[in-house]
């Protein structure tokens, strides 16, 4: 038996061989991360196509659009697009790419682990997510089409079947089932992320030395673990109401187009809202927290300065995560809920603005006194800060029930959540992509195209979503398939037209990104250096792309925090986490793939 001092390094899993094991059913967190990212990439273009069709139909309803059998788009087709757009974007893009995509790839690397704690479970999580996407998209192709109840799927509309609308039959069932499968996949993923972060950190990687991206992924995973079970329960009950005659959410005595519904009694539609939003509010923090982590990471790296207030940033994210579970009622001020509970939810919601504000101050503090390098990823990180401010501030109106009385279910809400989720979180994904692409693929994304992509997108998204606030203030309700019903909308149609044109241009600009992404995979400038951005975390101490077990058998030891930039007296303006004090002092680095001169 070998003694401890002479133990041979045998890797936990040997390098996979064969195309299927390497790229399809891989247990390597890096491959799985890329798979999630590609799923998100497909989904975001699908989601954008749906919204483009929506925007065109709204302001040019006479146009015959593709994918609308029968010529002009019907209201139910519009609502189906709307429902699937929201669902696909929230779940298949914002809940996958930032967390399961980049988190899967970089969490183990950033903490000095060779893989996630449960690699097989990781693979299962991805393929389960993939199945859920297939099931959801299948809703488009069944008789009746996709459901029309919005991504929030409130019963009784979502519970009564086709008598309340097209798409509410098989389409709605597939939607619920797909979502339930997604819940299961997310729970599995959350378990992996939390366990890995708690148990597999390398020597020296204390909690307070973890990059803020790791903190963000950890907190996000905790939110997911606690929230998705609730959505799963809600889906189960809704399915029972639909198919087995229970009445959890559907009261009795209903009449739909003169037909009395006799097979339901006593249920509460508001119960669904409580269950859904108890999940739904943490969900939006799941969507944004990784982006906050990335923003902090990049702002520090490209200002060449430590993050301002590392501890405060951690506490702020923890507070946001915790408070995020207490505010769900602010989606329900008008629902018939007790007005006293409404007020309590309101105060909690106003409070959650505090840690968000602290993070914003700290981002500004990080930039202050910096030497800013304007890489494309940094541009997106800076854009994230601006968008987070805009989207977050509009929330202060909605958090007050007296004001929400008017703004609820208007375009004001659409503006708010798009700015914060549909744009700020997306900018987090873009920033991460431009930053980590060279590490993942050994090639750079083209910076020039990237910058054009940034400017068009940044100006574009503000052009789309800023005007929507005014539509809401003017009382324009949301989820309207047609603008000719309510008369007071007439004066707002020019604004809608402006928004549609801006959307057309902005969505078109994303093709630049797609082209850049696909082209650079094979033709991008090679990333021969391990650390082109002169960053400090462990990812930049290994080759691009990394070996299958990340550290080629040499797990690093960490000696300092993740944002040691501009350290007084240091030779360079950055000190990587894994350099020993001796290496820092002498400037001589021991050989091995983990360090570079």
């Amino acid at each position, binding site marked *: 038996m070998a003694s401890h001092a002479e133990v041979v390094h045998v890797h936990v899993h040997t390098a996979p061989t064969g195309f299927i094991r390497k790229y399809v059913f891989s247990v390597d967190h890096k491959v799985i991360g890329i798979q999630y990212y590609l799923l998100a990439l497909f989904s975001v273009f699908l989601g954008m196509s749906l919204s483009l069709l929506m925007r065109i139909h709204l302001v040019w309803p006479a146009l015959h659009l593709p994918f609308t059998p029968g010529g002009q788009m019907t209201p139910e087709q519009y609502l189906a697009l709307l429902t699937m757009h929201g669902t696909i974007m929230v779940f298949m893009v914002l809940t996958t790419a930032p967390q399961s995509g980049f988190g899967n790839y970089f969490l183990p690397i950033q903490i000095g682990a060779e893989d996630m*704690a449960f690699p097989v479970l990781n693979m299962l999580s991805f393929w389960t997510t993939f199945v859920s996407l297939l099931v959801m998209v299948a809703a488009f192709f069944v008789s009746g089409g996709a459901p029309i109840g919005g991504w929030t799927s409130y019963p009784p509309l979502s519970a009564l079947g086709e008598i309340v609308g097209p798409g509410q039959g098989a389409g709605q069932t597939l939607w619920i089932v797909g979502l339930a499968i997604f819940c299961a996949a997310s729970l599995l993923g959350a*378990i992996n992320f*939390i*366990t890995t972060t708690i*148990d597999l*950190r390398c020597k020296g*990687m204390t909690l307070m030395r973890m990059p803020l991206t790791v903190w963000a992924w950890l907190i996000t995973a905790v939110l997911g673990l606690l929230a998705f079970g609730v959505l799963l329960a809600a889906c189960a009950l809704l399915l029972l109401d639909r198919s087995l005659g229970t009445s959890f959410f559907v009261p009795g005595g209903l009449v739909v187009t003169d037909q009395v519904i006799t097979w339901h009694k006593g249920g509460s539609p508001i119960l669904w809202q409580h269950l859904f939003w108890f999940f739904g509010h943490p969900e939006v923090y799941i969507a944004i927290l990784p982006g906050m982590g990335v923003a902090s990471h990049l702002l520090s790296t490209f200002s060449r300065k430590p993050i301002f207030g590392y501890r405060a940033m951690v506490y702020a994210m923890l507070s946001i995560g915790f408070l995020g579970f207490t505010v769900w009622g602010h989606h329900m001020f008008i629902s018939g809920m007790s007005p006293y509970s409404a007020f309590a939810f309101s105060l909690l919601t106003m409070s959650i603005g505090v840690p968000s504000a602290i993070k914003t101050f700290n981002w500004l503090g990080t930039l202050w006194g910096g030497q800013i390098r304007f890489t494309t990823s940094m541009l997106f990180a800076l854009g994230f800060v601006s968008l987070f401010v805009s989207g977050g501030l509009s929330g202060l109106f909605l958090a007050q029930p007296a004001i929400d009385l008017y703004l609820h279910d208007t375009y004001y809400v659409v503006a708010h959540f798009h700015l914060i989720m549909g744009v700020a979180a997306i900018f987090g994904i873009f920033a991460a992509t431009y930053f980590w692409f060279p590490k993942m693929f050994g090639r750079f994304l083209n910076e020039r195209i990237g910058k054009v992509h940034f400017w068009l997108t940044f100006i574009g998204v503000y052009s789309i979503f800023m005007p929507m606030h005014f539509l809401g203030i003017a009382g324009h309700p949301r989820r309207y398939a047609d603008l000719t019903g309510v008369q007071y909308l007439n004066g707002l149609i020019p604004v809608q037209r402006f928004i549609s044109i801006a959307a057309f241009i902005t969505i078109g600009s994303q093709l630049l990104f797609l082209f850049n992404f696909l082209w650079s995979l094979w033709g991008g400038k090679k990333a021969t250096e391990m650390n082109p951005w002169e960053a400090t975390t462990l990812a930049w101490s290994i080759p691009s792309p990394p070996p299958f077990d990340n550290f080629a058998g*040499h*797990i690093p030891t960490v000696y300092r925090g993740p944002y040691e930039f501009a350290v007084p007296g240091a030779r360079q303006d950055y000190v990587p986490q894994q350099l020993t004090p001796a290496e820092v002092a002498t400037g001589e680095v021991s050989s091995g793939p983990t360090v570079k001169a």
Partner: protein
Amino acid sequence: MPGVVADEIELQIGANRGGDAPSRDGGGDGDRGDGQIPAYRRASVTGITLALGGILMFFLALTSSYIVRRGVTTDWQPVPLPRLLWANTAVLLASSVTIEMARRALRRGAEDAFRNLWALTSGLGVIFVAGQLLAWRELRAEGVFLATNPSSSFFYVLTGLHGLHLLGGVIALVYVALKSWQGSRVGQATGAEVAAIYWHFMDGLWVFLLLLLTLGR
């Protein structure tokens, strides 16, 4: 001469012990000679605990739905709980005892005792589920079905979902017993520990659900 023993692969995490950086946590605590890596053994226990957290939230959501639904409705009819449920509960509690005995037997190295007690636990688990199905049959015979009234809906939903999770537990027990643990990152003892934690939780969850159904009747 260092070599790799065929039956026990010794693995090290964080063995690159260069430098004098203090570390309060993180891996690298080496092999304890039982063929397992402490970090991964810890991870298995962390993992199952977290999984139980997720499952708990699932059942808490159903519990709060139960409480809310009971409060809003006028059509709540108490479900006559079959007496069989109490017998089933005894079976499940007994199985918690046997699984605990099995786990400790394995730790001691008493392989035969482990195998027998483990099989006994699985058997008790199957008996429990069968008993639940019998209880369902009793209720159906009395005309109480899933959609009869909200109280009965919750009865079937809660017992059904718990039963499904317990069946999953039985499958896990069989897996732990039959799997070849050679070449694995953790030993059978850890697998047994993980399964036992899950099992005890399902036991406790059942007691909680039974109390809920009884008191909330």
